[in-house]
């Protein structure tokens, strides 16, 4: 009996210390002459069956492994804080204010094509979700914000989003600069920068010369 226990202990130690699963033949070599290896391994397996570590058979080899049900608890969760790209922030804002919006509509509002990952990131973050399809040709998918979006920004509802007038009052909306003799999108530094970082194609461009004549800014904002 003591011999058997000693064999059991040896197998235990061998399997523990080995970098690879150990072959049965290898274990047999180390055991006492005439030891019933199969019986020993079965006993060891049952001893560890309900423990945090289990004895598992891998083909003709054996190894200790942490219990599979503990995997979620063994995992270390690490929160990585990242900044959203400007394109993503803008897209999120546009969806929030104008939902439901199709991708094309977002692009029309922004005046630039949406780069590949932008909607994906917002979807993965759990802030936007599909909202059914538009009943127009091609039946494009529309997007809206989620409850998690409201949570993130501490909003009780979409009504809590300040309106354009309130944004203006808060000084967030820059006063519109009158354009004299110049028509078309103003190439401000910000805009230029963004076009670069996003590598987006401008869908529509108006050349000032072509438009000709006198123009004023159309002030209507949704």
């Amino acid at each position, binding site marked *: 009996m003591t011999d058997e226990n000693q064999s059991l202990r040896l197998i235990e130690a061998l399997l*523990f*210390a*080995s*970098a*690879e699963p150990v072959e049965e033949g290898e274990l047999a070599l180390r055991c006492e002459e005439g030891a019933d290896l199969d019986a020993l391994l079965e006993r060891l397996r049952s001893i560890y069956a309900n423990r945090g570590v289990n004895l598992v058979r891998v083909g003709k080899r054996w190894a*200790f*492994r*942490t219990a599979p049900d503990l995997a979620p608890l*063994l*995992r*270390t*969760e*690490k*929160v*990585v*804080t*990242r*900044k*959203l790209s*400007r394109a993503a*922030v*803008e897209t*999120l*804002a*546009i969806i*929030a*204010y104008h939902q439901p919006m199709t991708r094309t509509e977002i692009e029309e*509002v*922004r*005046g630039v094509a949406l780069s590949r990952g932008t909607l994906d*990131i917002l979807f993965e*973050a759990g802030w936007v979700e599909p909202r059914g399809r538009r009943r127009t040709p091609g039946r494009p998918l529309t997007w809206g914000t989620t409850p998690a979006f409201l949570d*993130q*920004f*501490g909003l009780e509802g979409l009504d809590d*989003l*300040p309106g354009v007038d309130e*944004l203006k009052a*808060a000084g*967030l*909306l*820059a006063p*519109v*600069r009158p*354009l004299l003799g110049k*028509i*078309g*999108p*103003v190439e*401000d530094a910000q*805009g230029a920068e963004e076009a670069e970082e996003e590598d987006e194609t401008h869908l529509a461009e*108006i050349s000032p010369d072509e*438009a000709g*004549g*006198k*123009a*004023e*800014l*159309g002030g209507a*904002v949704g």
Partner: protein
Amino acid sequence: MVETPPTDEFVVEPAGAEEAFILDLEGFEGPLDLLLALARDQKVDLTRLSILELADQYLAFIARARRLRLEIAADYLVMAAWLAYLKSRLLLPEPEGEEEPSGEELAEALAHQLRRLEAMREAGARLMARPQLGRDVFKRGAPEPIPVVKNTRFDISLFELLSAYANQTTRRQAAALRIEPLEYSSVEDAIQRLTAGMAGSIDWELLLDFIPPELSGGTPRRSAIASTFAAGLELARQGNIELRQLETFGPIYLRNVKEPQ
């Protein structure tokens, strides 16, 4: 030719009985080690060691080494000098009122140092005799890495969201163009107006009656007169109406062309 290093100068050819002695000297790790080895020869507990006897043995050892003109490290010589001094302190009566430690105290200090070295030596041996990791005791051979799950959290405040929207709106406003309605009335408009107005008329009509009455004077009105006149000419060219002016700068009339009979 390589010059003989000066150290060789003192090396004595080992001969006979002296050989072991030379090897012994090389085997010691400093004077304290040598003292400890000599003390062990006394075969007594280090606490009952005769320091005087030990000092004699050490001095005799060094004397023999010097007689053989062996290389002797300075450490050993310093110890020899100190032991000679200690011996004199132990043998001579203690001077009165000295602040220096007594000979006994110095001897005890040396004995303590020897005991301590021996203790550390034994401790080292006991430490090495313990089951050692990687030699006698083994760690997990196949450690299982603890998976690290990265949860991305986007850092964005309501302020950032709103300013992004505001910026975007500002840009959109800048991009959306609305051309102001022209002040000039077009010929096409006038043609439509004339055609509509003349429908069903059978007599001469005054051209000026077809100028939109809401137009104030000045450029808009003059532009409207011009375009309406041009429209009349165009319709006449097409053969739909006739034009008549009775005198220079007189009023212009127009009438539908009668159906050819």
